[in-house]
């Protein structure tokens, strides 16, 4: 067990709607998300004295948000980051609170990821008219090889070659996460899809089709971390942070394709640390979340974190295993593939709601933890949601993890 396992909790979560476009500033959206997280926790702005965020040169900062909301912070720092940074900043928050730098910390991400700066550099209107290739980009823009889909596609193609898996395994993930989105009123895409729908959708970059790719949106998300002692007095049942790993690296970075295997990704180096810190094993996990920028990234994270053997993920996900009421439900909000794209934090938010037994679904009593478990009636709350293993991804070379438990576990 980790020295600080279960000593810190996530006590508040909040987000703006997923918008396309927002027609708002990242500061405006961040203020809404932080305010909603405060309200969710039952805290006032003056109760929070630490704030942090991550961005890619595309967002507002903690001092701006704190000033706007009238908060006087004892600790504020904003980092450059991306997928897997949310989990990493939770780890930072634990250390900072333990060390006495602050007592309660907000973590936010705010991005006009659809109408503003898009991942991979394309413009909101389509292809980049004239592209400057400098730094690392000298060796990819010039080759028309820029977006995450184009880059991760290389690993996916080699994975198909090495394992004999087919894209029907990708389809299983698209179908499962979409099914969960049908139960989430906040999701962008709420119509169910089939394996065949996935197989018939248009190619983006082979081996990825349209339904392998996530939904870029304009959105802000926020979560609040504090000590267990303070958490007991707040509005919802606390969600305890059991362990994790943060921004673990592979032995060479994503833009160096000379490492032994393209699909031996960073999670492979981290999972023993996170399970050890949490003091649990795979069989204790009730549900997971994966950074599903693409269907394939879900597949490879399950494998990297030891939920199945190397090369076995294609078989592992067959037959709806990742769907609610099956063996290992994944991304219960619909995830990046179907809810919207938040650079990872929405998975933490959904996991917290599930562990509280307060998924914000169609059940009239969800806020009091009253659920029907009737999927036809729009309930997406798991019956047993005690321990969640959340996996973050920032290219093949970088991964994070956050293991959480609810009051019942």
């Amino acid at each position, binding site marked *: 067990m980790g020295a600080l396992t279960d000593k810190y909790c996530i006590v508040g979560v909040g987000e703006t709607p997923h918008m396309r476009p927002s027609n708002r500033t990242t500061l405006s959206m961040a203020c809404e998300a932080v305010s909603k997280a405060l309200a969710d926790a039952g805290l006032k702005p003056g109760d929070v004295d630490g704030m942090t965020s991550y961005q890619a040169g595309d967002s507002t900062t903690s001092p701006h948000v704190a000033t706007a909301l009238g908060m006087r912070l004892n600790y504020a720092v904003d980092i450059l980051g991306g997928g897997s940074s949310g989990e990493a900043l939770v780890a930072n928050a634990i250390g900072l609170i333990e060390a006495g730098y602050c007592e309660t910390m907000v973590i936010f991400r705010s991005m006009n990821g659809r109408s503003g700066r898009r991942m*991979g*550099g*394309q413009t909101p209107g389509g*292809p*980049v*008219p*004239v*592209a*400057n*290739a*400098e*730094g*690392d980009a*000298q*060796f*990819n*823009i*010039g*080759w*028309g*090889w*820029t*977006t995450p889909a*184009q880059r991760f*596609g*290389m*690993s996916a*193609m*080699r994975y*198909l*070659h090495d394992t004999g898996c*087919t*894209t029907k395994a990708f389809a299983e993930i698209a179908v499962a996460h979409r099914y969960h989105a049908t139960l989430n009123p906040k999701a962008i895409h709420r119509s169910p899809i089939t394996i065949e729908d996935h197989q018939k959708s*248009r*190619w*983006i*970059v*082979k*081996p990825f089709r349209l339904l392998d790719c996530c939904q870029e949106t304009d959105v802000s998300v926020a979560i609040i971390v504090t000590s267990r002692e303070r958490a007991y007095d707040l509005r919802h049942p606390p969600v305890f942070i059991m362990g994790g790993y943060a921004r673990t690296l592979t032995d*060479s970075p994503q*833009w*160096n*394709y*000379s490492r*032994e295997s*393209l699909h031996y990704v960073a999670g492979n180096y981290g999972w023993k640390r996170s399970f050890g810190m949490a003091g649990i094993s795979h069989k204790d996990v009730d549900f997971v979340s994966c950074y599903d920028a693409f269907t394939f990234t879900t597949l490879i994270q399950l494998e990297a974190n030891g939920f199945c053997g190397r090369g076995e993920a294609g078989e592992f996900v067959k037959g709806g295993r990742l769907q609610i009421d099956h063996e290992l439900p994944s991304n219960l909000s619909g995830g990046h593939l179907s809810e919207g794209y938040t650079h990872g934090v929405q998975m933490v938010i959904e996991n917290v709601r599930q562990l509280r037994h307060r998924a914000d679904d169609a059940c009239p009593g969800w806020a009091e933890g009253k659920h029907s478990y009737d999927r036809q009636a729009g309930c997406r709350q798991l019956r047993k949601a005690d321990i969640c293993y959340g996996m973050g991804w920032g290219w093949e070379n970088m991964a994070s993890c956050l293991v959480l438990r609810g009051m019942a576990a």
Partner: protein
Amino acid sequence: MPGPIDYSKLRILPDFDTVEWWAATRQRKYLVRQCKACGHKWFPPTFPACAKCASMEVAWFETAGKGTIYSYVVVVQPIVGAFIGTVPYVVAIIELDDCKEADGRVTRVAGVMIDEESEVAIGLPCEVVYEETNDPKIVMPRWKINGTASGVWRFTE
């Protein structure tokens, strides 16, 4: 065949670590970085230090520009404007023949294939070819299948 690449819509901006690499491509030479201390080779040259021994004493190794296709993607939806008329085109990762090291390390590079999708397969041999651009300072390396092999693998969906 993939369509032409509109190089007028690309601006390649060499820097301290890469200017010699682009100068070499103008002379039809394909370079990778090599460590003076331990001999390890790597690509791209944007990395200023040897990942094997951390030395920053670096030199160039001139490869024969021949290798084997290790993986590839087929870009169908263009993102960079220069490639609007090129789709569908194949970007491949190529494992270089003459950069295999005694401890098993290899050097892989990437580039746009001259060949069309139906001809490309993992395991096929290929070699670099050079394409003039509208910028006299930039010659672009591309890759071309130059033989056959047994046991190749192709994505057929």
